[in-house]
């Protein structure tokens, strides 16, 4: 995956994750153009489109558009599943997630994404494991700021 964008129906960006190195200016340009293109699509149209030399996979959940840019050899249908999995994770974490959750807790949305995808590829295919990891990391964060972090040598997940 080259990048993932989340934006509202009015075109406001809610999350942007870039896995390719681009300058700020380029990122802004791409975002602007892509948002326009996707928002111009009618509701019943198919979720895939070709844009520049990339394949774009997008899906609308309530008021948010989830939009991924993948490369030529990537499987579009599984990308739809990846988007869906991310939404499920957000849903489980926030409890019935809505756009406002993502606006006010954007950093958490990023943390969850970073536990699910790494370098543009899925790193964990089990929903349960991703959520557990987030939980544990959150707990770590709750620990009052002190000089030492709790030692965690024991792996949390039993290898299947």
């Amino acid at each position, binding site marked *: 995956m080259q990048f993932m964008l989340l934006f509202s129906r009015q075109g406001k960006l809610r999350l942007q994750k870039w896995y390719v190195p681009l300058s700020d200016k380029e990122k802004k340009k791409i975002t602007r153009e892509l948002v326009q293109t996707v928002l111009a699509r009618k509701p019943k149209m198919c979720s895939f489109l070709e844009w520049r030399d990339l394949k774009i996979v997008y899906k609308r959940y309530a008021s948010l558009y989830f939009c991924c840019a993948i490369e030529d050899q990537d499987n579009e249908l599984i990308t739809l*599943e990846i988007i869906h999995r991310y939404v499920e994770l957000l849903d489980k974490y926030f409890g019935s997630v809505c756009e406002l959750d993502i606006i006010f807790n*954007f*950093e958490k949305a990023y943390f969850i994404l970073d536990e699910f995808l790494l370098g543009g590829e899925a*790193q964990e295919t*089990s929903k349960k494991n991703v959520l557990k990891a987030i939980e544990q990391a959150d707990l770590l964060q709750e620990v009052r700021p002190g000089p030492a*972090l709790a030692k965690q040598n024991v792996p949390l*997940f039993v290898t299947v």
Partner: protein
Amino acid sequence: MSPSVRLQEMIRVIRSARTQGEERGIIQRECADIRAQFRQGDNGERSHSLAKLLYVHMLGYPAHFGQMECVRLIASPRYNEKRIGYLGAMMLLDEKQDASLLITNSIKNDLSHSSQYVQSLALCTLACMGSAEMCRDLAPEIERLLRASNSYIKKKATLCAVHIIRKVPELAELFTPSARTLLSEKNHGVLHGAVVLITELCKRNPDTLDQFRKVIQTVPELVQIMKGLVTSSYSPEHNVAGISDPFLQVRILRLLRILGHNNDTASDAMNDLLAQVATNTDSSKTAGSAVLYETVLTIMDINSESGLRVLAVNILGRFLLNNDRNIRYISMTSLQKIVQTDHNAVQRHRGTIVDCLKDQDTSVKRRALELSLALVSAVNIRSMMKELLIFLSFCPPELRSQTASGIFNAAERYSPSKRWHIDTILHVLTTAGGDVRDETVPNLIQLITTASELHCYTVHKLYRALVKDIAQQSLVQVACWCIGEYGDLLLKGECEEIEPLQVTEDDVLDALETVLQSHMSSPATRGFALTATMKLSTRITDNVDRIRSIVSIYGSCIDLELQQRAVEYNALFKKYDHMRYPAVLERMPVMDKNSPGYTNGDTPGEIKEPDTSKPKPVEAGLLSEPASQVCDLLDLLGGTDTPLQPSPAPTSTPTTTSSADLLDLLGGLEPTPAEMQKHCCVYVHVVPTVSVYEKNGLSLKIQYDKQTETEVTVSLIASNSTQNDITSFTLQAAVPKSVQLQMKAPSGNVIPAHGLGQVTQTVLLNNPNKASLPCFRFVQLSFLLNLSALFMHKLDYTFIPPTGQP
């Protein structure tokens, strides 16, 4: 107030701003606050200030002053500060910024941190924005983590390694040994990462690919894993809509594709598995369809057995009928890739594909259009054209010109009769005249002239169309030209093929004048109309004065071209009236088609024809010398009154040396057409044919069509001089490894008897490596004679095109 509430409070305040200006003001205040916070140093509040800055950055405001703060926070011992620091690094720093190098040391330390969550932060950041330098520095650390850590870290380290290899391909060797051991892991996350890593390694280096194929025996291992996934009982942790870990399945299938491509042993090893996955996977939900789709792609790309390929095409056919539009789109994209190689299999689904032309979605329509055009053949041309013409009337504007050119190409190749061809082109011009290419007008005119028996029909039809509507420029231009040329047929009022109109001379002149005066007509169109009017002066009897007056009016027209024409025509009337009729304005001879620009060659003596090329006499001098040697093979077009003669094939044995010599002679001629092309006039159309096989009344010839730097196009022409038809005619050819062969669909399988017809098949040879010559060898020829005896003749004719480059 807890710090995170302060962040949320800021967000609330920003969102409540009613105007852009108000928002800017708030942001400015907040940024000043944040800057002050950063300057204060460590007070436990820095992470929240950075979080606020990241939000501001997402809104589009500059945030570069936060970069150093990210670096500082990453180095902090507190987890929450590290976490936000790393996030900031991924958002604000990219490999182009200098500050990114500063975090390399922190990442290195954190990679060996005692807490796996800190390690994970470092890995994630490196995989997201690690530059080549950072990757080089940290690669050994990653490799260590690949081998000796828990599965949580292993899976992340594996994907980090993938990123490193993408950035610094030379480091691939470092990870190859660990990659092979990772395949035996049970944890799905690690397994998935391992498959991605091996895929990346194999993609980059063909030696590594070989290694994984032969030495490491990856294929059986992967097959085992897949079998486990496909047949295992319900596993809630990885289950998605009834499919066990579709993400992993898709990645494994993709790796199998790379391993099996062009390799028989590997492909054989996975045949069973692919069949099993293809038949057992439930495709009612997207997850299952994703797996099936990947399976189909894999089957088509490896050396699979034909039964499996048929299965794959059938799956794609099933997808075509799916209610889900996404799946229909995917299926057509895949069918497009295989339509050349598995043409017949795809033909079976033609009906469904044509139905998709009526879909609401433009992307689906576009795919359906491309596929439909690829599926047109001599057999289905009439029905397909009907559908395509209907499509043209309703298609979205962005697809119009593609459709129009596609229709023209198809009509060109497969039209069953001239009248049908002309009708089709007229239909396109009436529906989408504005979207056709410029060559259409001269092409159509040329076509009309060759169909001499249809002149009456054509001019009647065009006149009707002209009277109805003069907005479509190309149509109007053709109509004017025809009326000018064949106006007498129009006025005669009798026609066999179509209900004739009773048209008077005044009617015709009215129509032409309307075109001349209308503001919708382009200057070129008016030129056509003026010349047509002039030509009519020799074909009508009563209204020559009217024509004279029209022509003289335009003698003072503002448009220079029109003015010039009118003045010259006027001069024709006044001073050269004796030349006007019959010599200058008489009926034009049949025009012959030149290649590739289809510019017509006019006979000398015809005065300025509208927008066709200026006539120049054929430079006979240039061609006479070699022409005498090879006039059997050359067809000199234009400047002659005789229509195109098919060239007789050179006699005797088709040895490669003699054909090479002959073609070499022709090679020397090539510069001439190019030069003449510059003067936009007549070309020499070189059509050498070489006979390949002559036996039992069946003769097979190769016609050498054209050659570019890397591609050669030839046509195979088979004809039959026996008493009976030859049926089930097929031809097979083989090429050396460096050449790609593409055999287009033949025009048919039946060669009629007594030389009444021919079967033609176009073959494209692509030779990307220009060092070697593209040559191909006919391997086998099979056909049925008398519906009984099946002849299978092994040919061994090698065709080598000439080395002379045009």
